[in-house]
């Protein structure tokens, strides 16, 4: 049955009165299949004829998906019933796949790139993004490398994946850094790869303190991969991250970082120098930088006043 595609198109165009919701229900499908199929086809044909113009172009489909993504959270919180909310959530949960399919079906259309950016952004909005062979994320990244590796718009993708942890993210960042010739993209690939390596190291270091998380790491990222990472030469990875931060600050310092969930902008120089300060002065094994200031009674004191004692330093906020 070819209905799903048509139904999707209709849904995007007229979300409130889509007939597909009725036909989609399992109970409905069980009732008199033959009659129903006939009815269904007529209905779908009618619905399509009723539209004044041709089937939606890729650009129109993209806009419809984009609108769904933007309006989704509000629509969900305005839902009148739990059932309605569930349906909206279920559709939002599939948006990354819809963007990806749009790109896969129209690889030469200009919106393919926009759609792939959406997929990667949505999938990587969490510290445990779904990955692995044939996952939407890997399919999107490999299409980006296949068709768009020279695009001047890949910088933001590099930022999307910097907490990704998957091997595919590392491979993507290295490939962009090597193949893309736009200075801005190179700079963001360089910075993002350094951030990625650094984040991955930090998460691996925290893992022994979080035994309840180990199972999740194995499930999402693969047991063999995580164990291989735990055996790697961490000092060598840390040195590579440091060298990449240095290169990013020196060569691409003025490039602006796009605002994503992970960063509030600023320049590559600011970000990279902050990270270098962490690596050089705030890592385990380094002498803590001096702190000088006033205590709650207005008396001045220094962190180094406490040499000779073990100090638990607590960054806190009064809330």
């Amino acid at each position: 049955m070819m209905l799903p595609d048509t139904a999707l198109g209709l849904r995007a165009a007229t979300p409130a009165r889509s007939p597909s919701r009725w036909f989609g229900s399992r109970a409905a499908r069980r009732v008199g299949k033959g009659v129903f199929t006939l009815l269904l086809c007529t209905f779908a044909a009618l619905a399509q004829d009723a539209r004044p113009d041709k089937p939606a172009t890729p650009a129109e489909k993209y806009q419809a998906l984009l609108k769904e993504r933007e309006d989704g959270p509000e629509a969900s919180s305005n839902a009148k019933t739990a059932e309605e909310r569930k349906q909206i959530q279920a559709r939002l949960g599939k948006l990354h796949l819809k963007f990806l399919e749009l790109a896969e079906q129209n690889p030469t259309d200009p919106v393919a790139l926009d759609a792939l950016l959406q997929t990667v952004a949505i999938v990587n909005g969490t510290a445990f993004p779904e990955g692995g062979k044939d996952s939407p994320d890997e399919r999107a990244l490999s299409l980006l490398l296949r068709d768009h590796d020279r695009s001047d718009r890949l910088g933001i993708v590099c930022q999307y994946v910097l907490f990704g942890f998957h091997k595919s993210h590392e491979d993507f960042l290295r490939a962009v850094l090597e193949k893309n010739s736009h200075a801005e993209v190179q700079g963001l690939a360089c910075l993002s790869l350094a951030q990625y390596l650094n984040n991955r190291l930090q998460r691996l270091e925290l893992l022994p303190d979080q035994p309840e998380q180990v199972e999740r790491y194995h499930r999402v990222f693969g047991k063999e991969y995580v164990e291989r990472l735990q055996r790697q030469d961490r000092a060598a990875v840390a040195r590579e991250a440091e060298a990449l931060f240095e290169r990013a600050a020196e060569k691409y310092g003025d490039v602006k970082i796009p605002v994503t969930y992970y960063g509030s902008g600023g320049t590559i120089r600011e970000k990279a120098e902050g990270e270098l300060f962490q690596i050089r002065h705030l890592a385990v094994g380094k002498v803590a930088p001096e702190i000088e200031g006033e205590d709650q009674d207005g008396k001045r004191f220094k962190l180094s006043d406490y040499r000779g004692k073990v100090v638990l330093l607590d960054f806190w906020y009064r809330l």
Partner: protein
Amino acid sequence: MAQWPHERSLVKNLKDKPFALIGVHLNNSGDDASVVRKVMAKEQLNWRSFVDKGAIADKWKPAGTPSFYILDAKGVIRHKWAGAPSAKAIDMALENVIHDAEQEAKLLSK
């Protein structure tokens, strides 16, 4: 805050050890020392805290609150956590580092 009861007990239990708890109050809404002093008195946070006006956070860039560092007697960072670690993780780390500090003090006094 969830970590305060544990911190109060640390200060109490380790008062005869070479140990100090030092806070750095972050300047999220421009609080001055008097606001911080009031909160600390009310919550019985009986330790010293820097009152940051932004300069400390700019340098240290704590990834979240609370963030913890354990420094040994020479000021070397031995552990760090962004976000609250378990009380047990802090206890175990402190025990080791304090043990090292005591051993070293003993060697020096000989």
